């Protein structure tokens, strides 16, 4: 099971993963679970009604907007990076955070590398399952590499143009 790293208040820490990710053909287990979008559509609402916490894991080809009608009931959204070069989840993350108002856990899963920490955090991810054995210290350092940013994103850092106006 991969390590889970949480990003809270400018620092990465090891977190206990309370969720089990269920494959589409796996038997249902107890406790809090993460389902694919197709399986969630079949079983999700009933499981939420049982009082469980349920998350959805979107493939990079699935649009974040499909979650709009069910977002209120979700406890977690996981976005998949099938390869680190597949950057669709960056757009999906920003849409979830900045347009759809998602305030819950947004987890990066798949080919998640510390070299992309800076981008993921800026796009609104706050939980990571690193695929490269990187540590929370690596993530904290990678996120702090640049003292300034040039554009607004989901992390609400003040961009250079705002800093300049404030100066």
């Amino acid at each position, binding site marked *: 099971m991969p390590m889970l790293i949480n990003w809270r208040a400018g620092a990465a820490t090891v977190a206990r993963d309370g969720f089990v990710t269920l494959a589409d053909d796996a038997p249902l287990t107890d406790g809090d679970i993460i389902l694919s979008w197709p399986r969630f559509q079949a079983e999700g609402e009933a499981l939420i009604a049982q009082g469980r916490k349920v998350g959805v894991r979107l493939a990079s080809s699935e649009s974040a907007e499909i979650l709009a009608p069910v977002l209120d009931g979700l406890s977690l959204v996981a976005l998949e990076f099938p390869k680190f070069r*597949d*950057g669709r989840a960056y757009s999906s993350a920003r849409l979830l955070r900045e347009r759809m108002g998602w305030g819950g856990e947004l987890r990066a899963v798949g080919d998640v590398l510390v070299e992309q920490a800076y981008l993921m955090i800026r796009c609104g991810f706050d939980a990571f399952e690193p695929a490269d054995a990187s540590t929370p210290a690596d993530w904290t350092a990678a996120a702090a590499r640049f003292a300034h940013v040039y*554009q607004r994103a989901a992390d609400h850092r003040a961009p250079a143009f705002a800093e*300049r106006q404030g100066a």
Partner: protein
Amino acid sequence: MYLYDDIDRQMLADRAQEFRAQCVRRLAGEITEDQFKPLRLMNGLYLQLHAYMLRVAIPYGTLSADQLRALAHVARTYDKGYGHFTTRTNLQLHWIKLRDAPDILDHLAEVGLHAIQTSGNCIRNLTADPYAGAAGDEVDDSRVWAEVIRQWSTFHPEFSYLPRKFKIAVTASPTDRAATRIYDIGLRLYRDADGELAFEVGVGGGLGRLPYIGAVIRERLPVRHLLSYLQAILRVYNLHGRRDNIHKARIKVLVAGLGPEEFSRQVEAEWEASDKAAVDLPHAELARIRAGFMPMGFEALPAASRRFEAAKADSRALARFARHNLAPHKQPGYAIVHVSLKAIGETPGDCSADQMDLVADLADRYSHGEIRVAYEQNLILPHVKLDDVPEVYAALDAAGLATPNIALISDIIACPGLDYCALANARAIPVAQDIARRFADPEVAERIGELKIKISGCINACGHHHVGHIGILGVDKKGEEYYQLSLGGSGEGDASIAQILGPAVPAARVAPFIDDLVGVYLAERRDGERFLDTVRRTGLAPFKAAAYADAH
């Protein structure tokens, strides 16, 4: 020109420090070449046939004299004493050692230069009009907008892993000197009926395997919304561009697949849903950037220079240089001076460290300390007083930089080709040298007039062969280098894709072949027609008949 402030400089320093740490880990064997590759590519460091190549960004082709001197220093200290200016107005250093790369980036950062986003599937270095700030026909300085986009696109968190690389060009003049129609996004600035600045937005141009001229998806974009509109285009592309096939991943394939109308509709919908105010630049910041490009103290001079006219009357060579390498400046008494990197028999775009130093000194003395890089692989001194042209010419001529051939047959664009590049199928440089030698006589070249030959060593088309008046593409035929010729392309305002003339020919046949084509043109042309105009009027038939006559 815009000078980097503390924030801009800190960005470069942070980046250089990050890359140094990555190089140390690689040299110590802590990471493998496979793991290092994406990291070095992010910093413009490629592994080519013989050595590492570092691609240094020259944002929108504008350099200060100090920056050009820094490039000369790097070329002299860490390379073989020269660099290669590319069709994307970058400088490539082809003989770099990995252990030197961090020092080079530190040295460049001191003068505000870097290799950020010169590789990878991100928004690459911007292209603007090389005459910006000097052209009489511009409605604005296109570099203002290029710098706005440079900052916005640098380390963009959402758009650093696009389906494929992404290139944006900006022009602010009715004469398109930035080849905007062959860019992923081409922005053409104009004044609308109310006198307001607006962009015409073209999307989906590109060369490579599938050449396309960009489609206009918005005829009038108020300039204040530039960044939010770019975000909408990039977001639609990032989410929907193909990722299953590298050859179909550019935005041109998405636009062509959906059709420009549907692509435009999706962009508009995304744009309407977005928080424009969060993305668009506040007025004060735009004004700050604009101030960096304010024209600096031109002297009030008569439109004609007696001194210059007298010198031309005395020197046919200077007069010829003036006919071909000078362009009119918006300020009376000034000229835009082209520095030719196409000396006969030399490598197109190559420039020695000594030549860089000389051009930098001339810029300091005669051109407000500014140099431009044109995508045709030449340098430009944008603000030279006509009175000073004789001195500038003499200094350039002594250094082999005054070949009077701008836009003529020997002003050939060529990619590095198989002499350097791991992707190439064939060499491009020797073919260019062959052709230039054949038309070395300046009288002959002048009689032929404007003729743009563009050579690529492979289908990736770094040499823009699709938009050459004569395009030449190197292909591999069973281990032998062959060259496929096409005619009638243009990358300018009248953009068009060249049509293939016929079967490819071996290297030794290319220059004689060009000779045949020129012969047809000279026989067929009507008053004032350029080679391109004649091809467009007659079609390929007469050219085909003459060039392949031997084959029948």
